[in-house]
């Protein structure tokens, strides 16, 4: 591959040979020398004197190693990366990408991108995931060969399911005839990207610097074309280290990045959808990852108000303000005669219910949530990028008007088509629909408040109390709820005035536990640069997957308020095992814990506040009495405003 120029290979191999030889000399003293030393010594010393070779190696001036002539290939790679304005590179350091690492921090002056020290590859990808959902720009992360990419894989899968672009660059020592023995061999593969190919949009293995320039810009472009998604570039160690070849005195060129316009729904299908919506008695809009930008939120409000249609925001992103009277709960589909789904990867699950009740040979039962004859419309870009091996949809759902296109990009045309399709005589009826929606919204708010009041003073702290104490502490700031993991009964979406897109970033996508902590830190990094205040609801199980990201936040001065939803269990599994025990009519084995054996995180309880303190955070806890929470939050907010991360370890109710 990149090593076919033998003249260039020698330098790198000489360097490695030199390293190996020096190490061997330091570790071994020839037996003859040892014998001579012992014969002349009056008595055995406590440690053998160093041989001349070892002494020279330890104290002398090392011989200057031959340097690679010309501009290193990895410097050119940095030139390519800089054209794309990638701000950060959160990564766990590794030898397979040592050359580009060196180029980023020295040649590139550690700016655009800035290397951020991570303690796990999953943290690096998770940070990039969270960062994008605030900044709207992707980050790159470097992974170490086979082992690093396998560590990263779960986070890549979350990004895939959540339609988030991340540029994963993996080091690899491709040339088996030349790569060093031992570790580099175990950490290399023939087709390393195969590890993540099923859940990346595209990958490549460039074999020349010119190839790299094209591949990297192409990867960026593919990742950033809706439906977004992660991409992978395998970076050969040799290609990184070898100098640029002289192409007649010219450097390889760097293609200019021009964004691809997102795909729109077919114009005929848009008109048919508008006709159905305009004629509907009770149209309902369901949105999941529809609003890619704040403009998407505005467009959705415009469509909803035009139709006076209630909107169910499934929360993949902040699509629709929770304070708007047309905001509706999931049950609103039940009275619809036309439903339009915007970026629903699984429409079936929106219009059907599933009950895990053990019937049907343990499969459970399904029921439709909608009236028969309800017409369904879909605008979904995921249809353009479906793969076979991993699927995030359930049963096949027949759609009356399906459109393979990006919802946000299609909304302007749909809005115009709906305006044209609404006859004047329908407008009074549509306005009346709005009045009913206002009433339903107000009643729903009161029901939510009444439910929140239950167990208000309970200890451990109720999740409604936790969320509302937290909101009270940050409401005067430009806050951003960067993650809400562990299921707090959806209180922020039920009670917080979520209106701006950065108020709610959605969830992991793939439900891979371990997303919350790194995504929070990544999102907080983006918010730091925008002057916003980041807050996360951090669950206990999630934090323990890769807690080292706490250190990364402290190291790089990323302010974040993490309030723990510490229910001392993998609570979803608590309920699952209890359910199966009941189905089988067996008393569940608790093994001395609160939950079934294997599901509790107690005995001993993890002192997360001490864990965070040990990694440079301000932290406090455990807080079990809700009356103590408000004051602790005030302290923590002050710390975060000063630029530090802070964690409150709060013992909570299970859900």
């Amino acid at each position, binding site marked *: 591959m990149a090593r076919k120029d033998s003249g260039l290979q020698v330098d790198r191999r000489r360097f490695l040979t030199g390293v190996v030889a020096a190490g061997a000399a330091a570790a071994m003293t020839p037996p003859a020398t040892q014998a001579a030393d012992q014969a002349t010594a009056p008595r055995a010393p406590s440690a053998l004197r160093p041989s001349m070779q070892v002494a020279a190696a330890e104290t002398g001036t090392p011989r200057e190693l031959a340097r690679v002539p010309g501009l290193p290939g990895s410097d050119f790679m940095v030139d390519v990366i800089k054209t794309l304005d990638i701000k950060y590179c959160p990564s766990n350091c590794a030898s397979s990408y040592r050359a580009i690492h060196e180029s980023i921090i020295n040649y590139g002056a550690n700016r655009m991108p800035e290397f951020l020290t991570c303690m796990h590859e999953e943290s690096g990808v998770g940070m990039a995931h969270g960062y994008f959902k605030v900044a709207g720009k992707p980050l790159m992360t470097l992974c170490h060969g086979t082992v690093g990419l396998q560590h990263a894989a779960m986070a890549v899968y979350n990004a895939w399911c959540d339609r988030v672009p991340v540029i994963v660059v993996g080091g690899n020592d491709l040339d088996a005839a030349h790569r060093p023995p031992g570790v580099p061999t175990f950490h290399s593969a023939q087709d390393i990207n195969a590890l993540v190919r099923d859940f990346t949009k595209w990958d490549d293995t460039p074999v020349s610097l010119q190839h790299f320039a094209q591949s990297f810009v192409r990867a960026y472009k593919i990742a950033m074309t809706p439906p977004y998604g992660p991409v992978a570039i395998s970076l050969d160690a040799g290609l990184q280290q070898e100098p640029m070849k002289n192409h007649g005195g010219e450097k390889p060129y760097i293609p200019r990045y021009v964004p691809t316009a997102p795909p729109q729904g077919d114009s005929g299908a848009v008109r048919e959808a508008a006709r159905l919506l305009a004629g509907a008695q009770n149209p309902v809009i369901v949105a999941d990852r529809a609003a890619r930008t704040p403009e998407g939120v505005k467009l959705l409000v415009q469509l909803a108000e035009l139709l006076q249609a209630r909107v169910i925001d499934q929360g993949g992103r902040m699509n629709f303000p929770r304070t708007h009277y047309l905001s509706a709960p999931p049950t609103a589909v039940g009275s619809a005669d036309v439903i339009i789904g915007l970026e629903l990867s699984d429409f079936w699950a929106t219009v059907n219910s599933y009950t895990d*009740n*053990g*019937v049907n040979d343990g499969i459970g039962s399904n029921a439709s949530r909608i009236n028969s004859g309800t017409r369904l419309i879909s605008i979904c870009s995921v249809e353009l990028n479906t793969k076979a091996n991993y699927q995030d949809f359930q049963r096949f759902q027949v759609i009356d008007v399906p459109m393979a296109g990006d919802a946000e990009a299609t909304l302007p045309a749909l809005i115009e088509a709906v305006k044209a399709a609404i006859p004047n005589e329908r407008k009074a009826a549509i306005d009346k629909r709005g009045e009913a929606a206002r009433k339903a919204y107000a009643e729903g708010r009161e029901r939510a408040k009444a439910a929140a*009041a239950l167990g208000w003073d*309970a200890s451990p702290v109720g999740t409604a109390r936790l969320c509302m104490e937290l*909101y009270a502490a940050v409401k005067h700031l430009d806050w951003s709820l960067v993650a809400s993991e562990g299921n707090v009964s959806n209180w922020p979406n039920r009670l917080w005035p979520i209106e701006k897109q950065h108020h709610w970033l959605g969830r992991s996508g793939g439900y891979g536990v371990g997303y919350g902590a790194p995504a929070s830190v990544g999102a907080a990094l983006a918010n730091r640069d925008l002057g916003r205040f980041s807050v996360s609801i951090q669950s206990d199980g999630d934090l323990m997957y890769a807690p080292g990201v706490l250190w990364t936040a402290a190291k790089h001065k990323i302010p974040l308020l993490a309030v723990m939803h510490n229910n001392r269990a993998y609570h979803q599994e608590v309920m699952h095992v209890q359910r199966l025990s*009941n189905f089988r009519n067996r008393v569940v084995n608790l093994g001395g814990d609160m939950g079934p054996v294997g599901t509790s995180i107690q005995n001993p309880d993890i002192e997360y506040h001490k864990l965070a303190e040990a990694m440079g955070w301000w932290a406090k806890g455990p807080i079990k009495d809700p009356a103590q929470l408000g004051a602790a939050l005030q302290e923590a907010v002050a710390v975060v405003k000063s630029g530090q991360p802070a964690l409150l370890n709060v013992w909570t109710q*299970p859900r």
Partner: protein
Amino acid sequence: MWFVHLLALAVAGLAFSQMAAAAGSAEKGKAAYVKHGCWQCHGFAAQGGIAGPKLAPEPMPLEALSSFVRNTRGAMPPYQEAILSSADLADIHAWLQSLPKAPGTKSIPLLNP
């Protein structure tokens, strides 16, 4: 949907009416509530949440509760006598009955920001 099912079961639960006479112990009921895992979906204060509805204050009658718990085919898994005795269930019900009403939402400033 679950409450429709519940009503039907409540009617069927007349057979359990003798249990109404059994006076449960609220103190024992609190322990039984935790031991049998009711807290998992309904919370330690029986306040309910996304995984299960509130059970208190003002719990359903014991007959209805018993009928539902024994026969549910909804989201909640059934508890048969072998894993939850009628005596424990009566105690749990007594504890649920003992729980005070929640404060009014208007009296909680944090719910009216």
